[in-house]
């Protein structure tokens, strides 16, 4: 029996630096991934994780680098095509797919890249794309334009694309951000299988439970600097959170009773065929109502009906005791509702506009000075307020949104809605892709808003999140509300068991 070489590395980086203007995204970072290893890259939003991936794959060139080595071979300068030919593939955080192309072409697109003219074989493309999707155990119409797919399926397409060309090193930048629990489980299974076959995986996720479950080692980066490399054995979520943020994060049930608060919003027997049925709920002023359950339970559909984006078949809604029939989303917003939707990256931001303009776009009316023009001082003040409150990591408020890291873009969307000072705020999976520190920041603000009397509906898959931040929890399954829990009288494992049972 021959012994394998002591340690073979898929990737080794020494002292790699990269700056964007004034922002030092990576500062002399070392990073090593063994062949066949599942290695997690962890850190707060904007700490440089995606930048590291882009530097290795030749999307960005580093300012300086002592060593970049791929599969034992020293790399001087690399471009994306060469990186792929060497066996590196990436699931990008923003997917980097082509919305008007078919699913099959998106999955097989990398085969088409290059300047040597050759003909496109659509049939072969469809077969190959179909095979990868089969491996993932999902069915998606291969000829449908990507545009037509919900965000979770687009994510699956991005995953399939990375698996297409038997890579030896796969970067997965938040691949589970918009996946459901069962899809996530399937992806983690595939990651394990790939790793067993000798493929190295670099996994980025803000869901720390997932990180600890899948990875063997974790490299923590803070503000572009390496904090350290740790085995996940014996690591806890709290410890990892501390390493990432540099301070301790408290997480506790904070439910309150609000016996005297007036009811802000109420539904009575609300139904929409095939989506949800007989939903009756009340939300009081100052209350955070958690709504959880499996995917397909009808939670987002319910939110859409509340926002006037579609109509209920039966039942009534009451807002401050008066009948409420929203005709459109604009109508709902005028009535004081706000909705942070689940795939806010697609809908919420004007990528080319500045951070400040994106933040204030929903409240322009409130920023007008006596002259009828937008007051720049008030605008700057408001933007500063929210950037500080949410801890958005930015260069200048006037920079384009597209220069922000993924998680920080999400914070801007939240800021945009929070700035409208609504009466009922619906948060649909508000912390997808947001780091632990910022999650705490976001929920501190949600708390403060609740204290001021705002009613909040918090929709989330993450049981811990709902537990720690709601006053009351509704469990929805198959379109019906099945249970009402008090976070103080149930534990996270108990609730998880009921939901996933």
């Amino acid at each position, binding site marked *: 029996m021959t012994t394998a070489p002591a340690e073979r590395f898929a990737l080794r980086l020494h002292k790699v630096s990269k700056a964007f203007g004034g922002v030092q995204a990576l500062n002399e970072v070392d990073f090593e991934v063994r062949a066949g290893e599942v290695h997690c890259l962890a850190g707060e939003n904007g700490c440089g994780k995606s930048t590291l991936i*882009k530097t290795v*794959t*030749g*999307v960005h060139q580093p300012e300086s680098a002592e060593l970049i080595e791929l599969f034992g071979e020293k790399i001087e300068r690399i*471009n*994306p*095509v060469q990186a*792929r030919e060497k066996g590196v593939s*990436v699931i*990008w955080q923003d*997917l*980097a*797919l*082509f*919305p*008007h*192309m078919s699913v099959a*072409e998106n999955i097989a*697109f*990398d*085969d*088409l*890249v*290059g*300047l*040597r*003219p*050759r*003909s*496109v074989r659509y049939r072969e493309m469809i077969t190959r794309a179909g095979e990868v999707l089969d491996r993932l155990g999902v069915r998606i*119409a291969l*000829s*449908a*334009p990507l*545009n*037509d*797919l*919900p*965000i*979770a399926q687009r994510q699956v397409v991005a995953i399939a694309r990375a698996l297409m060309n038997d890579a030896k090193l796969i970067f997965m930048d938040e691949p589970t951000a918009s996946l459901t629990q069962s899809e996530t489980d399937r992806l983690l299974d595939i990651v394990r299988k790939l790793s067993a076959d000798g493929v190295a995986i670099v996994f980025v996720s803000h869901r720390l439970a997932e990180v600890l479950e899948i990875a063997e080692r974790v490299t923590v980066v803070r503000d572009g600097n390496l904090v350290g490399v740790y085995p996940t054995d014996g690591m806890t979520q709290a410890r990892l959170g501390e390493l990432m943020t540099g301070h301790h994060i408290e997480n506790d049930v904070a439910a309150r009773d609000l016996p005297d608060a007036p009811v802000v919003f109420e539904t009575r027997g609300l139904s929409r065929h095939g*989506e949800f049925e007989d939903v009756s709920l009340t939300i009081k002023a100052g209350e955070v109502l958690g709504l959880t*359950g*499996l*995917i*397909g*339970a*009808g*939670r*987002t*559909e319910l939110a*859409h009906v509340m926002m006037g*984006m*579609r109509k209920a078949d039966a039942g009534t809604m009451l807002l401050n005791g008066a009948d409420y029939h929203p005709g459109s989303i604009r109508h709902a917003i005028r009535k004081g509702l706000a909705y942070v939707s689940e795939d806010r990256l*697609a*809908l919420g931001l004007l990528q080319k506009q500045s951070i400040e303009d994106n933040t204030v776009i929903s409240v322009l009316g409130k920023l007008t000075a006596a002259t009828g023009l937008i007051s720049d001082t008030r605008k700057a003040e408001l933007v500063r307020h929210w950037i500080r409150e949410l801890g958005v990591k930015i260069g200048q408020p006037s920079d384009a949104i*597209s220069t922000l890291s993924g998680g920080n873009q999400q914070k801007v969307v939240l800021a945009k809605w929070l700035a409208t000072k609504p009466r009922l705020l619906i948060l649909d999976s508000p912390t997808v892709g947001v780091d632990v520190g910022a999650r705490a920041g976001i929920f501190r603000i949600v708390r403060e808003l609740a204290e001021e009397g705002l009613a909040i509906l918090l929709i989330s898959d993450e049981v811990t999140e709902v537990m720690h931040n709601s006053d009351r929890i509704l469990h929805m399954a198959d379109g019906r509300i099945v249970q009402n829990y008090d976070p103080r009288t149930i534990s996270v494992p108990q609730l998880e068991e009921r939901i996933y049972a």
Partner: protein
Amino acid sequence: MRDTLRSYTIETRLAVVLAVLCVVLSISAPQFATLPNATSLLNNSAVNLIWAVGLLVVLVAGGIDISFAVASSVVQYVAAKMLIGIGGGNWLLGFLFCGSLGILLGLLNAWLIHGFRIISIVVTIATFNAFFGLLMFFSGGRNIYNLPDWWTARIFIFEHENAQGIWSELTLSVAVMVGCVVATWVLIRRTNIGRQLYAFGDNPEGARRAGVNIAVMQGVAFGWMGLMAGIAGLMQVNIVKEVVPNALYGRELDVLAAVVLGGARLGGGKGTILGCILGVMFVAITQNGLNLLGVSPFAFQMIIGAAILVAISTSNIDLSQFFRSKEARS
């Protein structure tokens, strides 16, 4: 079946509208549904369609070009001077001259856009003015009549005389147009280069990360547009038998309107040859029909404007699609 219908929504709709239009016109204008009218429609649309497929490539790649019609005029003028200078030339030289001159002008646009990171509409408005100004300056606005014989010769690829002694003919320009359409279809639909053009227009950052060579894509898109502009210039001379420096000025907007009507997306990533053909035919048939019915030509401009508004407002359903696509999820 439903899938194909969906991916061709705009094209299908346009085809239906076009069919209805044809039926209405054949009833109300007796000359409409005749062979002579049909062939003259085709002859008159040839140059527009050559431009249109070139412009489609640019639109698909996320750009826009305002300068192509004037570029055709420049090509005509320079080619005429050069060909006369070398003693006449022939069709082969004509295609070579006009094609390569056109490509050069296209590459100039691409270089300005990519090299200086200026958006294509600004660059091509600038080159539109520059091309036209230079052309008028050097030509003094004078037409060129004494062109080589081969260039102005009438060449028919189809002739037919009906019972009343009226001739129907298809000119060489129609054959060239068919060639351009097929070549463009092969480029954007059947080659990896064309697919990278779509990808680049659809999501430039995604294309860059996949390793698509952006500079080359701009070059291919505008170079192809230039090639088509060169060929269109050559064929337009064959039709009108003279070089009139300002004859093509203003035609670019008609072509742009037709291509957009055909479903090409301003902003890139979407557009088909079929849509392009239907768009050009819609514009041509509307104009032809109104002519036959004796309606004022200004009505035509209004109708095309309204049609564009209807087409764009009913096809821009991205937002509603977004909500619809989420129905399956919670």
